[in-house]
């Protein structure tokens, strides 16, 4: 499933970029992210939980940055599984930062996610709605964080 959206942050592109590549700052903005650590050059390890109705899932994710053009573009792959390997998740993510006329920054992201295993049996239509809602939640938290740092 493809998740595609964009949001605007009232900060310069350099500031937004600095926040995007800083796991300490970005992790608290990711809904359900319990921990994040640097596991190697361009590699991060994260634990993320979410729920759809009665179904709860917790994934151990490996994120690898595959391409980076500061301060405008980053591509990454995400691979992960639930502790029991009941579901396996893979994703390719791209993120673009664009400076707008008023000096603010538009963040555009697209993520192609596939889930196989037990969660794959659950309706992907609803998963997609859920993922989009989490994307909006992230955008709000991230924007608030960067704009707050900007004001400080």
């Amino acid at each position, binding site marked *: 499933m493809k998740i595609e959206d964009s949001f605007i942050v009232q900060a310069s592109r350099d500031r937004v970029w600095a926040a995007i590549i800083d796991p300490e700052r970005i992790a608290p903005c990711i809904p359900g992210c319990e921990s994040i650590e640097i596991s190697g050059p361009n590699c991060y390890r994260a634990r993320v939980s979410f729920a759809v*109705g*009665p179904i709860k899932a917790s994934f151990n994710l490996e994120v690898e940055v595959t391409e980076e053009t500061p301060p405008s573009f980053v591509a990454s792959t995400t691979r992960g599984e639930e502790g029991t390997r009941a579901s396996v998740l893979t994703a390719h993510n791209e993120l673009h930062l664009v400076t707008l006329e008023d000096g603010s920054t538009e963040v555009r992201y697209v993520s192609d996610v596939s889930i196989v295993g*037990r*969660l794959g049996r659950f309706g992907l*239509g609803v998963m997609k*709605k859920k993922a989009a809602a989490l994307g909006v939640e992230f955008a709000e938290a991230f924007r608030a964080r960067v704009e707050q740092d900007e004001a400080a």
Partner: protein
Amino acid sequence: MRPMEFHEPATLDAAAALLAADGEARCLAGGATLVAMMNARLVEPSALVSLRRIEELRGIDAEGDGFCIGAMTPHRVTAADGRLAGGHAVVREAAAVIANPSVRNMGTMGGSIAFADPAADYPPALVAIGAEIEIVARDGQRRIGAADFFTDWYETVLGPGELISAIHLPGAPAGAVGVYDKLARVEGDFATASAAVVLAMAGDACSHLSIAVGGCGPTPLRLAEAESALIGSGLDAEAVQRAGEMLAQASDPVDDVRASADYRRLVIPRLVARAISRAITGARAVL
């Protein structure tokens, strides 16, 4: 797989106490959905609290001009209760088209609405009739309107330790007719889209109307503008079509194995028109 406890309390109080003691415990009603999800390892409760032995949760009782339906009443019983006539027939018709006879024997109204599948049949019917959901916890009970009970995809207001004890159907206006119309790929499937309508006529004009669309968003969709545009009118085909289009516009359907979101938006006005047309025929017969 971790071990799971199984309880079969005989009273509602005992069930509420068990749920209060263990936040990961789940109520087992008919099991039509929960057991299938456990088999698929989608949910793994620490304990099951079976409601099967709690007598007060079963059966349908007249209550003023309306009815009180126990949460553990199986769909088969609801579908066969001839007292659910007039406006209340919307609930009976919804019960009659849920899945197949085996599921209608096992599945219960409380279980179905607690799971809150947006494509299930009861949610739009209960929203259209203005039902109230009675919720019990260890420290008391509360009632909430069906429209506020469903909050998101597969999510309700039910908190930890709470269970549904009954569904109250209010009285319907005199001469009202309730209709539930479901579009499904095959008989017994979840709804691709559905429409629940409760309608009354005064002469040639519509005097009461509620429309709830199912399967086309996180929760049943009811739209005051669409209804008020039709109330007082003669329900001509063009006005009904426009109201259906307003509902389609306000819907938020998914793309899934049953249909695309675009297809669902396309069929909503037709389904609403079909349900209203059948309700008008019924209302004329009543007059």
